[in-house]
């Protein structure tokens, strides 16, 4: 028996894969080199091609066929085909987001600016209405550090509000501030602290104080910031009586 006889004898075993692993590897190597055995093996393979149909068919579980389709087609699609739609969607979203975010920021900024301007306009209208409806106007001149300024009060008896204008005064020294007071029947009542900016008059619209009784007049003092008392302690700059 020659070595080749062994291969001839085991051709069908090779096709049926009943050889042990070493013999199978040896046979596979031989078939690659031996055309005669290769042709014979192909004939046997064809002869036994339908033999696996001897096994009973097994009904696939529900959804398994669909899973195969998804798996096979998903695996085999070129990478660009698998990713092109999600990538395009993602890119579209990014572009839309890229356009939306700055637009939204600009829109928010404009809305805030508009609200601020609207508030300022309403405040000015309100101040103007107090001035236009004022029943009385009180004025006092103030001289400070060589500058000539003044305190102007528009008293609206209908809305019971005053529009107070302080003009021409230098900025308050460090540690001090301009303080407006109401002169009431029961004494002085703290009004508002006024911030003076060079070259710009200060406008305030004040309601009448709830305490102290009838308002009889107003005063402006240069008050130490440390003074938290209800009574003025600083220098009086103006004093006006209704």
């Amino acid at each position, binding site marked *: 028996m020659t070595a080749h006889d062994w291969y001839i004898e085991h051709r069908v*075993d090779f096709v049926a894969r009943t050889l042990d692993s070493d013999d199978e590897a040896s046979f596979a190597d031989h078939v690659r080199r031996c055309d005669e055995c290769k042709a014979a093996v192909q004939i046997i393979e064809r002869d036994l*091609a339908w033999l696996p149909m001897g096994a009973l068919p097994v009904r*696939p579980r529900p959804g398994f066929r669909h899973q195969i389709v998804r798996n096979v087609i998903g695996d085999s699609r070129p990478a660009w085909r698998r990713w092109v739609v999600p990538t395009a969607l993602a890119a579209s979203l990014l572009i839309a987001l890229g356009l939306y975010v700055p637009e939204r920021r600009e829109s928010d900024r404009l809305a805030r600016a508009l609200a601020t301007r609207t508030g300022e306009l309403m405040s000015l209208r309100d101040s103007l209405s107090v001035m236009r409806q004022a029943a009385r106007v009180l004025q006092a001149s103030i001289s400070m550090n060589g500058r000539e300024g003044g305190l102007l009060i528009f008293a609206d008896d209908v809305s019971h509000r005053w529009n107070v204008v302080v003009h021409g005064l230098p900025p308050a020294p460090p540690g001090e501030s301009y303080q407006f007071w109401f002169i009431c029947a029961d004494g002085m009542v703290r009004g508002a602290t006024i911030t003076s900016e060079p070259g710009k008059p200060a406008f305030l619209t004040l309601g009448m104080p709830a305490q102290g009784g009838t308002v009889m007049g107003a005063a402006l003092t240069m008050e130490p910031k440390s003074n938290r008392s209800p009574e003025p302690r600083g220098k009086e700059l103006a004093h006006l009586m209704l």
Partner: protein
Amino acid sequence: MSADADRSLGRSRPAGASAGDGGRFAILQGKELRQRLIARDEQALVELIEVATPWLLGVTHAMLSDESDAEDVVMQTFSIAWNRIGIFRDDGWDLLPWLLRIARNRAIDRLRSRRRHQMKTKLIETLGGLDERVTPAPEPNEAAQPGWHVHETVKAAIGALPDDQRTAIRLAYFQGLTQSEIAEHLAIPLGTVKTRLRLAFDKLRVSLATVKDWNL
């Protein structure tokens, strides 16, 4: 082969004609489906999966005795087929036998690489009989399964073998055992196993010649 088997095979039909069990199996006939697959027709793949899956599961399930592994191998089989259909040569192989061969080889590889055959041998012992089937029992409508007539023909061919040869074939071909493993399992000489298998395969090659010529 019996007369019934002959009739069920429909040997008198022209190649490409539909079998008596419906036209779905006929889609595996001829080159039309193959050409559609080569053209990457996904509907053709769906049709192939529809018809071939039960048979592939039958082979892999019988060999692996594990539903998950069997499904995995079938999945791989279709992936391989879909990716290699372009280089699938018209050398006498039809689609279903080609798929069955891929599936069986994959199942054997998996069986051996995981040394599952040892578990398998124990399982066969547990079942207590060599003719016990590890495949699921036939379902009531299996006769309507496309390709059922081919199964009946193959089954008849195997059934016509002497008991000892039939046993050897079942263990070797349908349960993936090697000759040595069969010898060990049956406690008989290796030479006896080889002889039984050789005789059985020789008979089957003759019996299945008609199926081979049936151009599915």
